[in-house]
């Protein structure tokens, strides 16, 4: 569902596609995002989920940053992402248990300190500080 909405938002119309080259199509996408294109894109940070660590282990990001946890294709173990500590009022954050070929995203809207752990591996943890 989320993917379908995104698709409607960013795709050019059929007419636009037929009349424009690749570069121009990118420009259309950029106009729809805003005048400056990529500059207005919501911030995101990637985190690698590997056996048995997250990388990086600490992050400081502005509010509304999307954290994207990406499971390494080399994993031989099951891992998840669970918010063991988070600011008051933030709903539970918990991915499915996964090994490879999986990505989990959450936008951290509220400032404060978050601590994420793998519930299967006691010392596999990371911290995210979200600043206003």
């Amino acid at each position, binding site marked *: 569902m989320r993917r379908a909405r995104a698709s409607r938002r960013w795709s050019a119309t059929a007419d636009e596609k037929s009349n424009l080259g690749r570069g121009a199509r990118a420009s259309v996408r950029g106009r729809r995002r805003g005048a400056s294109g990529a500059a207005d894109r919501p911030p995101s940070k990637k985190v690698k989920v590997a*056996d*048995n660590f997250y990388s990086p282990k600490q992050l400081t990001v502005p509010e509304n940053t999307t954290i994207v946890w990406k499971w390494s294709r*080399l*994993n*031989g*173990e*099951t891992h998840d992402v*669970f918010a*063991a*500590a988070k600011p008051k009022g933030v709903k539970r954050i*918990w*991915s*499915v*248990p*996964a*090994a*490879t*070929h*999986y*990505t989990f995203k959450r936008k951290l809207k509220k400032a404060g300190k978050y*601590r994420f*752990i793998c*519930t*299967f*591996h*006691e*010392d*596999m*943890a990371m911290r995210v500080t979200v600043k206003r």
Partner: protein
Amino acid sequence: MRVARVTVIALVAALAVPTAASAVDYPPAGNPGKGGGKVRKGKAKTYTVCKQRKRCDFRTIGKAVRKARGGDTIKVRNGTYRESVTISGSRYDGLKLIGNAKKPRKVKLDGKSLRGAKAQNGVLINNADKVKINGFYARNFKANGFFVVNVTGYTLTNLVAGKTGVYGIYAFNSKGGTMSRSEAFHNNDAGFYIGQTPPQSKPRRSVVKNVKSYANVLGFSGTNMRYVTIKDSDFFNNGSGIVPNALDSEKFPPPERNVITGNRVFWNNFNYYAAAPFTVPESGPAGLPGYPLGVGVLLFGSQETTVEDNEIFGNWLAGFGAIQQILLTLEEDPALKEAAILRGNTIRDNDFGLNGTDLNGRDMFYDGSGTGNCFAGNTTRSPNVPGNNSTFAPCPGPAANAFSSAAQGEGVGWIAGVNKNDPSTFEKFWLRHPHAARKGVTPLERYSR
């Protein structure tokens, strides 16, 4: 596992950096099965699932699960279901998911064409007690075939798990359950796994019986498992057979109070580094350069565990091995140091070498570390390590066993001297003998399609 030619000393040094414990806010995997789930009021319902339109209540298992409540039964007819089934929460306590108990391969859960979360686990049971799963075949999932986590009481029977990314049939942080009449193969870690069992004042035992596990990295693995009985089962053609182990990557070390009895543990010489039907794991347990290949039963740290009445034969490195968890001995935390030690283990009445027709490379290996470990009534036919049998104390075990640094050095050398890029190094210490023919089973050392 893939670290090339590292010495154990370097390895140990790298791994021995203590890490902060996080037990205080370690949440869902705390104390499973508090009970009191919301079982449906009134009579339990039965739902049917099949692929044919309008012939059953649902066409997907997931939809049936969402409709069901604890105590209900979901009957799934033969077919291939391209979905991942999640049973999560106490509202499902006592749910029964029934496929084809006689021919579980007829009811397939196939993860091959799935993506993302749906591609991970065939069946995931989380925080739902006393769920029964009977008669399914899960294959091609990126993580696990059948996965039980944070529950008290589970029944997994007549299951087949193949070609998963981690474990075939897996119970984690759970108290008491049964895995029976099931089969696991081509899994890139263990076919069967029970790990991180919470210590209990009145233990609920888990039973693994009448299962077959073959052509996996390990036949059975149990990191920090306790109160588990593994019996009357076949573990063959794996990298190694049955391996209870103590690791600090999971809670509650060491493995303890387990019983391994009445099993046939044979031909565990699958060198998957040469070729494998699965993706070979990047590393072994605790970052070891590799799991050892060619061992029948290996206690890698264990306490109060009994290994008895097993038939162990045709394993090229050793039929049985016991070694303290050398990496944990270097930890600063006294509890982890303690968890490394072999204490109170009993190895008795095992038959090695199948009446001399299918010998192990070595029958028994024990470094003599720890206390109260004893050996009695075992029938051996190949040499032991140490060769003078100085570590094999009679039962009851002595206050302190007779440590042999030479034996430990030999055992460590088997692990340290391997190089994943050169599969032959995993066979360097094997002592091969002819196998006895066995109906329906062919020895597997090098995989080919």
